[in-house]
């Protein structure tokens, strides 16, 4: 731009000199273009210069139009002579502006400068930079306007392209997801930051001005020595990626993965650092590590428990026999009893190890969170000096969990809280749906609920915080250190997650995340008695089948009872043949001295493939219970069951087509 205006000024100055020296000639030419004398000189100058020269009268009519103007516009002087330049040469969009500028030019100090578009005879548009001079008459009044112009279309286009490209670069620079830092590399090493992008400002909280006063060596980092080494070795260290934890203005430590490149830009040597925030990745790596650590410790615990159980088998078995042999000797019997008691403690420890090692496959059913919290034993443990404050959102979704396992988890956390408060204080239990902004990166898609337990104890020191879920980690002599490790394992098997947060001096918060059931289960207050249909109950224990029969009657069903699989099959067949079929059958899994549920269901299904058979057992760990559909059962009822559970299973089954 400077170059263009310089050229115009030179031209204009030359013209002015010419005007001063030969003004008379020009005026005479204007008055009489055919007059002789200076005519040739003027015409030659006008037509020889590269600049556009147009002379206008004060109303904008064209008086002179040089050769360059003719070449550019395609009009001859004859075509435009005496016509208003605004009507012929100015693009429609600029007519008002140019008209305004022209009036301004006529009244202003000279020389005056402006830029405008001219349209040619063929419709092409050119961008022209103008300098105008006023030409006074004999009395000193401005009579004519002499405008000298240079076609700057090409340079304008280049400038525009450059501007666009700079704009594009800035846009890219600022819309990158990574923080980008540019700093100058001088003979003295890395200098001040030249530029940082918006993400850098957002992540670290410094203003642009604050950044421009910093260098890569003064920006706060955790690993200062590592940073200094890298800076000193630059540009040898360029191109490789490394991790560095920067400290934001508010003191937050943010881990970044940096990649530094050496570039040459606008004559400067520049170091460009592209920094990716890896907070989430780091957290996920830590969680994966924790999970795999627990899995390997779990495998070890399982293996120890296995050997331990084998040893105990021999030990306990032989002790029992020894007691039989010496039953008349009280002293020896008493000693053997002590040994057996100790061995039984070993058996309990092996159980705990196994529970941690595999958690037990959860047998899931749908529960309201409030019902789960109601069943937690810890609530009963809250005595005079410990208060539990429950805050459960009204809209909380139900969860599909193994009731026993999850209540045990919550119970362990509550007991932990009671212990940490030395039996005095308040425990806050909050439960609600996980909202979008609360979602943690380790949760899968779909709705989740969270149950948060906070106590008023002294909190967990930072060194212990990452170890609370480690097996056998405990700060109390009386604890096995398996409670929270088992909680982690159980929640993990529910596709959930458990976290702990603690600021020293304040009680910790344990948060359990559990997958929620999107559709709210129908919940009735109390158990209704709207059951309908014939139900066959098979159980080898008389009191169990009698109790089931009574419950079914109360619920409104018509029960019949069978003592084993064979009898159940016969009754099922006969009822169907009599045109009064059973709508569902509840079968005990293990029947002493007869056909159990596993075999009986096959017989019933062979006779009636549509039969609705429910398996019932107290052995919740039995593979048939956790995988009942594979064995032909349509439902599962864990003993002991409540009327409501019995009713729910039957209702669900009988509603199915």
């Amino acid at each position, binding site marked *: 731009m400077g170059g263009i205006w310089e050229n115009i000024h030179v031209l204009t100055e030359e013209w002015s000199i010419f005007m001063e020296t030969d003004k008379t000639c020009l005026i005479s030419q204007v008055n009489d273009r055919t007059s002789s004398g200076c005519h040739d000189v003027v015409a030659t100058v006008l037509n020889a210069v590269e600049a556009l020269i147009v002379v206008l009268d004060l109303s904008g009519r064209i008086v002179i139009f040089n050769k360059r103007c003719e070449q550019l516009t395609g009009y001859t002087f004859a075509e435009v002579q005496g016509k208003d330049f605004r009507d012929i040469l100015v693009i429609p969009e600029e007519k008002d502006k140019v008209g305004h500028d022209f009036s301004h030019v006529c009244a202003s100090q000279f020389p005056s400068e402006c830029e405008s578009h001219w349209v040619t005879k063929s419709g092409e548009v050119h961008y022209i930079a103008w300098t105008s001079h006023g030409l006074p008459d004999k009395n000193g009044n401005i009579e004519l306007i002499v405008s000298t112009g240079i076609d700057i279309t090409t340079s304008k286009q280049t400038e525009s392209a450059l501007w666009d490209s700079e704009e594009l670069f800035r846009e890219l620079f600022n819309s990158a997801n990574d923080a980008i830092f540019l700093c100058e590399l001088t003979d003295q090493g890395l200098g001040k930051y030249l530029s940082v992008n918006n993400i850098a400002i957002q992540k670290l909280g410094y203003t642009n001005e604050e950044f421009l006063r910093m260098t890569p060596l003064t920006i706060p980092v955790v690993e200062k020595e590592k940073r200094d080494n890298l800076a000193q070795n630059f540009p040898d260290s360029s191109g490789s990626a490394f991790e560095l934890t920067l400290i934001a203005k508010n003191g937050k430590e943010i881990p970044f993965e940096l990649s530094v490149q050496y570039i040459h830009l606008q004559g400067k040597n520049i170091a460009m650092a592209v920094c990716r925030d890896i907070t989430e990745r780091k957290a996920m790596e830590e969680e994966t590590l924790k999970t795999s650590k627990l899995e390997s410790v779990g495998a070890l615990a399982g293996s120890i428990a296995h050997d331990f159980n084998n040893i*105990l088998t021999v030990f306990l*078995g032989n002790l029992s026999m020894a007691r039989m042999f010496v039953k008349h000797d009280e002293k020896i019997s008493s000693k053997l009893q002590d040994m057996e008691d100790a061995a039984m403690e070993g058996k309990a420890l092996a159980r705990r190890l196994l529970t941690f090692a595999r958690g037990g496959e959860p047998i899931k059913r749908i529960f309201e969170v409030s019902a789960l919290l109601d069943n937690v034993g810890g609530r009963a443990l809250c005595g005079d000096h410990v208060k539990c404050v429950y805050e459960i959102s009204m809209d909380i979704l139900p969860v599909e969990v193994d009731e026993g396992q999850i209540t045990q988890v919550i119970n362990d956390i509550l007991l932990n809280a009671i212990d940490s408060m030395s039996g005095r204080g308040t425990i806050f239990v909050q439960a609600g749906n996980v909202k979008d902004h609360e979602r943690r990166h380790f949760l899968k898609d779909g709705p989740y609920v969270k149950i948060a337990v906070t106590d008023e104890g002294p909190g967990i020191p930072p060194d212990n915080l990452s170890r609370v879920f480690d097996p056998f980690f405990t700060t109390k002599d009386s604890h096995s250190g398996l409670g929270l490790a088992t909680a982690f394992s159980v929640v993990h098997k529910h596709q959930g997650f458990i976290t702990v947060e603690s600021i020293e001096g304040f009680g910790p918060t344990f948060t359990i995340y559990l997958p929620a059931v999107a559709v709210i289960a129908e919940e009735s207050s109390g158990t209704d008695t709207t059951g309908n249909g014939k139900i066959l109950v098979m159980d080898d224990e008389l009191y169990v089948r009698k109790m089931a029969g009574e419950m079914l009657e109360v619920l409104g069903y018509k029960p019949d009872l069978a003592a084993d699989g064979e009898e159940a099959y016969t009754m099922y067949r006969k009822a169907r043949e009599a045109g009064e079929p059973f709508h569902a059958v509840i079968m005990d899994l293990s029947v002493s001295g007869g056909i159990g549920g596993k075999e009986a269901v096959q017989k019933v299904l062979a006779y009636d493939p549509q039969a609705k058979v429910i398996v019932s057992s107290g052995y919740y760990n039995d593979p048939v219970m956790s995988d009942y559909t594979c064995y032909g059962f349509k439902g599962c009822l864990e003993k002991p069951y409540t009327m409501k559970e019995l009713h729910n299973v039957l209702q669900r089954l009988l509603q199915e087509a």
Partner: protein
Amino acid sequence: MVRTVMVVDDRVGIRKLLHEVLQGAGYKVITAAGGNEAIKMIGQETVDLVLLDMKMSGMDGLETLTQLKKVCPQVIIMIMTAYEELEVLKEAARRGAAGYISKPFDIEELKDVVASKLRAESA
């Protein structure tokens, strides 16, 4: 008629204990220290019920179970396990195991289970 129970476990202490307990309960008891020995023995003797350990060195419990059922399809096989891995139990059930008993067990409980399974089979 005296029923025959075969105990398959790689631990001598368990074989010895079960031999004594079951013999005391009136059964004929034979023992095998591993899968191969058990398969050989079941071809030579009439066995009514097998108590089979799941985790053994050499041929494991699941493979032994499959082979025993091939040689003697009607035999009742009870799994003994010191570490109830659900997948293993499910697989054992699919391969024809009649039930399982967890170690450490009460010897009276073990005798009840054996008696009940043999009763159910003859019923």
